[in-house]
C-alpha cells in the first residue's frame, strides 16, 4: 500500500489510485481530444477528496494538458489570438466570480451539492445531445449516406451588435460582446466545475460565433490555459484549497495516459468515439445523481472552520 499524505487536503491517498486516475483521464482526453476536467473533478469527489480541493486541483491539472494541446495547435497555426484574448478577459472575470461563489458555498456546507447539481445538469444535457447526435450519425453512415456538416457564414442577430472587431484568423467581423459574454459564462462554469470548459466553449464558438472548426479547438485551448491558471491562483489565495501534491500525481498520470489515449483514439471512428464519450459522460452524471437521491449511510459530517492566517 503506497500511501501518500496530501499536505493541504490533510488526508492520505493511495499513490497508485491517484496516478491511475490521472492516467485514465489522460487516456480519455488523448482519445477524445477533450480536456477531461469535467470527468476528473467528479472522480476526485467520488474518491473522497473534499469538493473545494477537487475543483482547485482539477483546474491546476488542466493547465498542463491545455498547454501541451495549445502548443500543438499553435504549430499548425490554429489559434486566433485576438479572439482568444477577448475570451480570456471575459473568462478571468467569470473565474473570479466562480471562486467567490464556491468559497461562500463551502463555508455554508453546500459546495458539494451545488457542484454536483451543476455537473448533473451539464453532463446530462451534453451527454444526451452527444448520444443522440452520434447515434443519428452512425445510423446515417450505416444507411450509406455521408455525414452532414453545417455551413458557416450565415448572418444571425449576433451580427447586429455594436463594438465590432475584426478577427482575422477566424475570418469574422463581429461585435466583441458575444465572445466576451461567452468568456464570462465559461470562466464561471470552469471555476465552479474545476474543468477547462471546452465542452461548452467549443459548441458556443462553432454555433454562436460561427468560427471555423479548426480554429475553434486551438483558440479554446489558448483561452483555457489562462482561465484555469487564474482559477488555480485564485483558489490558492482565496480558499487555500489547492493541493499541489495531488495535482502533481494527476499530471504525471495524465501525461502517460494521454499518449496511449491518442493512439487508441486513432483506431476508432469519429461517431464511435463520440458515442463512447457520451456514454461515459452520462454514466458520471447518473452516478452523481444517484449519490444525491440515495439515503446516505452517515447523516452527520464534520468540517473544520478556517481560522484566518
Amino acid at each position, binding site marked *: 500500500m503506497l500511501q501518500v499524505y496530501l499536505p493541504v487536503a490533510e488526508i492520505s491517498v493511495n499513490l497508485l489510485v491517484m496516478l491511475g486516475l490521472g492516467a485514465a483521464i489522460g487516456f480519455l482526453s488523448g482519445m477524445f481530444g477533450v480536456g477531461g476536467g469535467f470527468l476528473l473533478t467528479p472522480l476526485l469527489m467520488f474518491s473522497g477528496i473534499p469538493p473545494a480541493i477537487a475543483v482547485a486541483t482539477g483546474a491546476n*491539472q488542466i493547465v498542463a494538458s491545455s*498547454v501541451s494541446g495549445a502548443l500543438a495547435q499553435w504549430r499548425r497555426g490554429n489559434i486566433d489570438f485576438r479572439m482568444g484574448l477577448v475570451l480570456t478577459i471575459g473568462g478571468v472575470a467569470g473565474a473570479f466570480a466562480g471562486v467567490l461563489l464556491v468559497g461562500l458555498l463551502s463555508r455554508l456546507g453546500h459546495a458539494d451539492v451545488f457542484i454536483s447539481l451543476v455537473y448533473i445538469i451539464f453532463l446530462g444535457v451534453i451527454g444526451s445531445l452527444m448520444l443522440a447526435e452520434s447515434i443519428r450519425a452512425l445510423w446515417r453512415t450505416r444507411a450509406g449516406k455521408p455525414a452532414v456538416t453545417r455551413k458557416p457564414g450565415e448572418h444571425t442577430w449576433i451580427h447586429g451588435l455594436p463594438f465590432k472587431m475584426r478577427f482575422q484568423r477566424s475570418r469574422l467581423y463581429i461585435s466583441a460582446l458575444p465572445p466576451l459574454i461567452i468568456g464570462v459564462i465559461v470562466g464561471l462554469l470552469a471555476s465552479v466545475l474545476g474543468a477547462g470548459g471546452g465542452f461548452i466553449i467549443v459548441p458556443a464558438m462553432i454555433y454562436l460565433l460561427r468560427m471555423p472548426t479548426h480554429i475553434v479547438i486551438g483558440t479554446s485551448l489558448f483561452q483555457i490555459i489562462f482561465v484555469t491558471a487564474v482559477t488555480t491562483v485564485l483558489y490558492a489565495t482565496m480558499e487555500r484549497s489547492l493541493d499541489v501534491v495531488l495535482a502533481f500525481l494527476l499530471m504525471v498520470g495524465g501525461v502517460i495516459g494521454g499518449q496511449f489515449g491518442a493512439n487508441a483514439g486513432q483506431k476508432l471512428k469519429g461517431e464511435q468515439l463520440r458515442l463512447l464519450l457520451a456514454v461515459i459522460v452520462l454514466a458520471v452524471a447518473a452516478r452523481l445523481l444517484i449519490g444525491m437521491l440515495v439515503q446516505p449511510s452517515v447523516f452527520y459530517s464534520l468540517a473544520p472552520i478556517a481560522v484566518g492566517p
Partner: protein
Amino acid sequence: MMRHALILLLVALLAPQVCAAEEQSRPEQVQSDISMREVSIQPNFTGVEIVLFGSIDFSKAPSPDEGPYDVIMVVRGRDKPLVVRRKERIAGLWMNGASKTFPTVPGFYAVLASRPFRAITSEETLKSLGIGFANLDFGKTGKGVDAVDGFRANLIRLQQDRRLFQESDDAISFIGRSLFRGSVDLPVNVPIGRYTTQVFLFRDGKLLSQSQSSLQVHKVGFERVVYMLAYHHPLSYGLLAVLMATSAGLLAWTAFRRE
C-alpha cells in the same frame, strides 16, 4: 525590593495550599514521560504509536505494601472549532441541512486506563479532570440542547471513526508494582500542534498525584515547505503550481510531439 516582595507574596499565597495538599493526599508521587517528544509527519507517514511510561514513587508512602494503584492517562491535541452538519432530504435530494458549531473541540483526545476508568473513581472526579468523552467541554454552542439534538453525540462518534477520539480501558499495563506503560496510536490524519499528556495516579478512587508532559506533532521536510507556502505565501504557492503545470505541459509536448 519589588522582586523580594513578590516572592514573599507568592510564598505566602502558596504555602498553605502546599501544606493542605500534603496533609490531605497520600504522598506517593507519579513520574512519567513519553517515548518521543516530537512526531514528524513526512510523505510516508501512516501513523505512529507513542508510548507513555511512568513510575510510582513509594519513598514517602505510609507503608510500602499499600495498593493497588490505578492509572489514567489523557493525551490531548490543540482545541479547534468544528462544525457538525446533518444531511436532510430537501426536494428529494440529500443535502446538508441543520448544523451546529462547537468552538473548542480537541484535535485529538485519548483516554487510556489500567482498568475501566469509570470504575476507578467517581463521576465527579472524572468530570473535574475532564476525563472521558462525556466530560469534554466543546464550548458554547448557542441554541439547542446537546443531549437532545444529537450533534454532540455524532461529533464524538465521527471523531472516534477517524481514530481522533479514543477511549481504551486496558491500554495501561503495570510492570511490577511501580512501573507502568501505556500506548496510544496517533493515526495518519492526526492534526499538527502541541499535545499535552496527563498521567493521573489513583488509589481507592482518590487522586494521589498527577504529572504532565507534552509532545509536538509537526510536518517536516517537503510536507512542511508545501504547508508553509500554501498557508503563509498563498500567492507564490499558486503561481508555483501554475509554473509546475506549464512545465509539465511543455515537457509532454516536446517529449511526445508527432510532427
